[in-house]
């Protein structure tokens, strides 16, 4: 087990190097010049050269990349181009808790709504209950998230106008605080994010549950005289949840970087919003840093999933 963890963490280093290399190369060769973007229309060539030198952009690409890696090894993401001289981590550190908060609550909705809906649909397969459930889930899953966001916002505005309630349409409260105002801010984006994902979880749960209910050991459980309740919740569910662990692990990984579209549309100051604006501003150090965060998140999420497997499925041993 310890050996497995060490191996995985070493693997993580290589994943991060790979991810940063690709994002670095793409950023380097992409058209556009960060310094020009920074300086605007009118600038002196002298200042331009000075800044290029200050940010190390006059070096060949491999030296730039090497410098980046060396800094990264010291947990230093460098300085933002856009907000001249502000450390990248300084920009990101406020975004991370917001994005994680949004994503973790969404994950709770995936599990609390998606999984039960999937189970009910599987048990009532091909009845009207199943058709209704899966119909709703299909709409939620298939609808582009930005359409869903805007629909919800329009709905909130409509309710506000009709009832005089002053429910906010955008922004986020204090991270990890739950006063009534905070909840008002957070509810809509969490629900949008949560329901879209719950639809996906419901479909996976249904498929997996249907598969398990056909297994011979379910017939054995019935032949033992177990009541249907135990057959389902003890014998079927535990097996049916195994595929969900993978999906949950990957989802956990993405929580750190947040939801690009939802955060932007709801104006939530999370990593998603920061990433999008840094891409628009060609703020390479910030883009690099978010890519690193995502890579770490995905690898750690998968690691958690692998550990969870061993707890649920005795056939799996980590080596």
């Amino acid at each position: 087990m310890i050996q497995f963890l060490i191996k995985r963490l070493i693997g993580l280093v290589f994943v991060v190097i790979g991810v940063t290399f690709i994002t670095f190369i793409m950023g380097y060769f992409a058209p556009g010049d960060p310094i020009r973007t920074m300086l605007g229309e009118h600038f002196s060539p002298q200042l331009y050269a000075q800044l290029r030198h200050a940010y190390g952009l006059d070096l060949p690409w491999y030296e730039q990349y090497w410098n980046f890696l060396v800094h990264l090894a010291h947990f230093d993401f460098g300085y933002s181009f856009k907000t001249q001289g502000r450390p990248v981590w300084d920009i990101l550190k406020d975004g991370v808790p917001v994005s994680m908060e949004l994503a973790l609550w969404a994950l709770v909705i995936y599990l609390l709504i998606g999984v039960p809906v999937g189970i009910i649909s599987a048990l009532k397969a091909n009845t009207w209950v199943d058709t209704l459930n899966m119909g709703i889930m299909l709409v939620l899953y298939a609808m582009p998230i930005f359409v869903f966001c805007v629909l919800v916002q329009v709905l909130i505005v409509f309710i506000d106008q009709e009832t005089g309630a002053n429910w906010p349409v955008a922004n986020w409260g204090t991270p990890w605080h739950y006063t009534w105002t905070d909840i008002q801010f957070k509810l809509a984006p969490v629900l949008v994010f949560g329901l879209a994902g719950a639809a996906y979880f419901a479909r996976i749960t249904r498929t997996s549950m249907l598969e398990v209910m056909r297994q011979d050991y379910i017939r054995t459980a019935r032949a033992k005289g177990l009541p249907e309740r135990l057959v389902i919740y003890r014998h079927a569910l535990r097996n049916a949840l195994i595929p969900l662990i993978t999906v949950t692990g990957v989802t956990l990984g993405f929580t750190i970087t947040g939801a690009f579209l939802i955060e932007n549309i709801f104006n939530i100051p999370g990593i998603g919003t920061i990433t999008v604006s840094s891409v628009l501003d060609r703020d390479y150090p910030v883009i690099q840093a978010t890519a690193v965060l995502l890579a770490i998140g995905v690898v750690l999420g998968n690691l958690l999933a692998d550990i969870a497997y061993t707890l649920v499925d005795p056939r799996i041993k980590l080596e």
Partner: protein
Amino acid sequence: MPENLLEVNNLKTYFFTRSGVVKAVDDVSFTMRPGEALGVVGESGSGKSVTALSIIRLVASPPGKIVGGEILFNGENILEKNNDEMTELRGSKISMVFQDPMTSLNPVFTIGYQIAETVKRHRKGISNDQAWQRAVEMLDLVRIPDARRRAKNYPHEFSGGMRQRVMIAIALACNPQLLIADEPTTALDVTIQAQILELMKGLAKEFGTALMLITHDLGVVAGTCEHVIVMYAGHIVESAPVRQIFQTPAHPYTIGLLQSIPRLDEKRGTRLTPIPGQPPDLSREIIGCPYAPRCPRVQPRCRQERPELKPVGRGEQLAACFYPS
């Protein structure tokens, strides 16, 4: 106390599928005495497994449905019992061992747990420890070496033969009156088959459990059962004590089955005689004897009228044939 442990009368189990009604079991009647070992023989699709699943009321529904007849177990009609009464009966009075031991055990629970679970379900007020003790005891009985330690293992740590022993342990843990074994050795190596059959026969005798052994292999029946039922296309075509099935088979289908298995006492080089043709499509209406299209002794009458199961004049032997040999 009724004389018969099990009395199946005119059982009809149909499957309602898109392509029509499949009469998997059509008008089947037989009886079993307490402690008797009964063999049910027939090829795939003859209705033998569906008959067994009907008795324990585990026919997948939909599409399956028991549409007629009665199944008297200790004189009580099982088909009139509600779900709760059925779950009381399953695993305690009537148990079942299935064909594929590799997939019949739940991979995420220990062997001991899966046996103890049955015990705990059916013996009111038994403690977890006592149920576990019983599980270890049962593993010992089915000759799993080092039962105390092995009870804590998971199914994937056992071989196929061992898992079938575990299935037998689960089935017998509550001293059932009837054990239904649906092709219990089909998925196993030939060397293991004999051991499992021997074990099942011995334990059934020891526990006083009646054994209903379903198989497509007449050889399996020969050493294990006292009475044999031969099924074809959802009907019983012959029913006789095991010796008579082998010595004086009456129905042409039984004769065909016997000729298609190799025998040690035959001259070398003798060819096996297969039965030509295929069993009928059960979703179509069958007029006359279902075996008529494949029967070497078919007469015009066989194609118009279905023969009833009736005595052929040798004690308990019955055959559904107008022209029994």
